């Protein structure tokens, strides 16, 4: 069963690049890595997902080394509105299979002016 570990909190300043790492030593072959962002009083929302190497979209990049035992969410040039909790999710699910959907404890990112 994959267990994920993330830093509890991080501070940054506007305009900086922020990297949040998630450790998942027991990741299984079928597991994907997904990151979610959560603002206060809202449910989490999808940011990015990957299986290996690097994935980039309009808001973030996800770096996954060859051994897949960790992953790093990279947020370029953060702004105050990026202040949120970021969750790493490792798992797999399909029909009749909960898979092993393991969320990390979440990293609270505080962006300062």
């Amino acid at each position, binding site marked *: 069963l994959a267990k994920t570990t993330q830093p509890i909190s991080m501070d940054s300043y506007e305009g900086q690049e922020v990297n949040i790492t998630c450790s998942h030593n027991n990741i299984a072959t079928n597991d994907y890595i997904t990151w979610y962002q959560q603002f206060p009083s809202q449910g*989490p929302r999808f940011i990015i997902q990957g299986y290996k190497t690097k994935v980039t979209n309009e808001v973030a990049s996800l770096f996954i080394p060859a051994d897949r035992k960790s992953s790093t969410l990279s947020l370029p040039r953060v702004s105050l509105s990026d202040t949120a909790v970021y969750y790493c999710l490792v798992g797999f699910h399909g029909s009749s299979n909960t898979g092993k959907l393991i969320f990390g404890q979440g990293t609270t990112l505080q962006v300062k002016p």
Partner: protein
Amino acid sequence: DVKVTQSSRYLVKRTGEKVFLECVQDMDHENMFWYRQDPGLGLRLIYFSYDVKMKEKGDIPEGYSVSREKKERFSLILESASTNQTSMYLCASSSSGSRTDTQYFGPGTRLTVL
């Protein structure tokens, strides 16, 4: 846009009461989930449903049951609420696939059991 709605944002119940939390999604998703969220523990999966009337236990199903009579609706039931079930409850849905598909979350229900 996918919309997942939850019946209440805030709920206060007494110990021993039967509690129903309702979740509705409007995107014809096959999969629906119930999580609870507690400080320092992140999100923990309570139950998962991959089709109408089908359900599977997640990591912490004790003290909970679920019902999925229609595809768009997934209910979480606390048969006899206890104070340790005070928490934020989040519902999510996703389409079927062979990998971890994007989950769409509702706004959450903050339940307090007195």
